[in-house]
């Protein structure tokens, strides 16, 4: 447990104290300026543009940072030689992988929250935004970020940084297109339908956490939806961490 906490703390501090955090702050400021400027040419649709572009922008920023950071996490440890300092110590593979995951997730939570508040608090000075309405999709999309971090760590535990990044990006795209894949496969029928169904159930369905759209059409969403979606996210994260632990165990350093 001690080693797990130490790795979590170290990973979180590495990200927050590093260039990524400063870069994300800079990008958040630029995003804020851009979104407010865009809202100004929208024929009085400022609030809407700020809410939608703001949510999409901060989310994409967090997704890119999380995928790149998580995909690099194991290989950079190897390149820097840190792994050779950790491995001889009594640190279990699970503590190592879980520590890396929680450290990254924690730091991404900080980055995402800071960029969210930079944008929406600034915009709130100019326009009366409905912060609680934006906060639910913001909070829920963090499950998606956590899943992608877990997936990226899984890929990074057995492949190179670039390959892990590309694979995680592919999971992100597929995760948002699963219903499309399923309907296309069902229309084709035969083996394609089976493969489509397999992909549909095996790949993470990231649309479940996309409340950016649902919150407007279904404002009174039942609490069981939130609970089941959270269970789904936790299950998928546990699966990825378990597989990553196995891969790390089998990997020769």
């Amino acid at each position, binding site marked *: 447990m001690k080693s797990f906490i130490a790795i979590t703390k170290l990973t979180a501090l590495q990200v927050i104290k590093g260039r990524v955090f400063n870069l994300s702050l800079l990008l958040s400021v630029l995003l804020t300026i851009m979104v407010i400027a865009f809202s100004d040419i929208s024929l009085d649709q400022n609030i809407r543009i700020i809410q939608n572009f703001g949510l999409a922008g901060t989310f994409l920023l967090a997704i890119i940072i999380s995928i790149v950071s998580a995909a690099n996490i194991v290989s950079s440890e190897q390149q820097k030689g840190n792994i050779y300092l950790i491995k001889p110590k009594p640190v279990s593979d699970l503590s190592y992988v879980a520590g890396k995951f929680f450290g990254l997730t924690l730091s991404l939570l900080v980055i995402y929250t800071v960029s969210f508040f930079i944008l929406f608090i600034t915009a709130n000075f100019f326009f009366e935004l409905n912060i609680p309405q934006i906060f639910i999709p913001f909070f829920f999309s963090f499950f998606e970020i956590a899943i992608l971090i877990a997936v990226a760590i899984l890929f990074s535990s057995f492949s190179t940084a670039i390959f892990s990044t590309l694979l995680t990006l592919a999971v992100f795209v597929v995760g948002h297109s699963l219903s499309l894949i399923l309907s296309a496969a069902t229309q084709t029928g035969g083996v394609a339908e089976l493969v489509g169904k397999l992909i549909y159930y095996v790949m993470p369905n990231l649309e479940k956490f996309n409340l950016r*759209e649902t919150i407007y059409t279904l404002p009174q969403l039942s609490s069981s939806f939130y609970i089941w979606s959270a269970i789904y996210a936790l299950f998928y994260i546990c699966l990825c961490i378990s597989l990553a632990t196995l891969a790390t165990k089998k990997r020769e350093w």
Partner: protein
Amino acid sequence: MKDQYLNILSLVWTALILLTAGLAQAKTDQILHQEYLQLNIKQVPPTNYLSVDNIKKINLGFNKASADYIWLATIQYFGGGNPNLPYQSLSEMINTVVTLDPNFEYPYLFGGVVLPWQEEPQEALDLLDAGIKRFPNNGLLYYYAGSIAKLNLKDANRAAGYFQDSIGKIGTPPAASILAGVSLTELDDRQFARAWWEGVLQTEENENIKERARAWLQYLNLVIDLEKLISQVESSTDTKIQSLNDLVKMNILKEVPVSELGKLKYNPQTKKVSRILN
């Protein structure tokens, strides 16, 4: 010393590059603008956006942000040229926005105002109908739809329906009750129109609207009385009345009555009395 010199040189070099790039940018913009003006275009060319289905397939669930992006592009497209020219893609772009996000209220209104000027009244009405389904309490949607039906499609029946439905909805201009009455007055059902005007008189608190309603009611009563009189005269005397002056010549009326809305005329083909529009 040498380092300092190199630093200054690199700064000057960077500034020079930026200046040249800026100049080149401005020059190309100017050339494009001149070429555009020389084209003597008859219509603003279409944009090449993907279909809604394809946008939905590739936008990874960012439907609202995509709708907003195309909305900004629509404004740029419409605001980028001569407002009197037809904009080929305008209707398609607005439809794309509301298909991506049906809860985006403003484009329905925007399309309802702009598309009739682009000679696309039916597209505007279809868009407003879709908006009414989504926002049944927005009175402006009904109001614009009624205006298009009345002014562009010359469909008084449909216009009357929209104007009537708009009463009591959020944002409906006070004139809606008057326009509903005007559209109803143009229809064959004079009694219904009279009842409408009486209703407006009884319920309306705005004095200007009441005054207009009183004038329309006086006109309508006059029209109903004259049509009734002409019918009686024709059946009792076996003569065909050709104009209201015939009634004066036959000493039935002292003079041709004038309504508060203007002079009246009689059409022997339709057997209807109506006001003379300037």
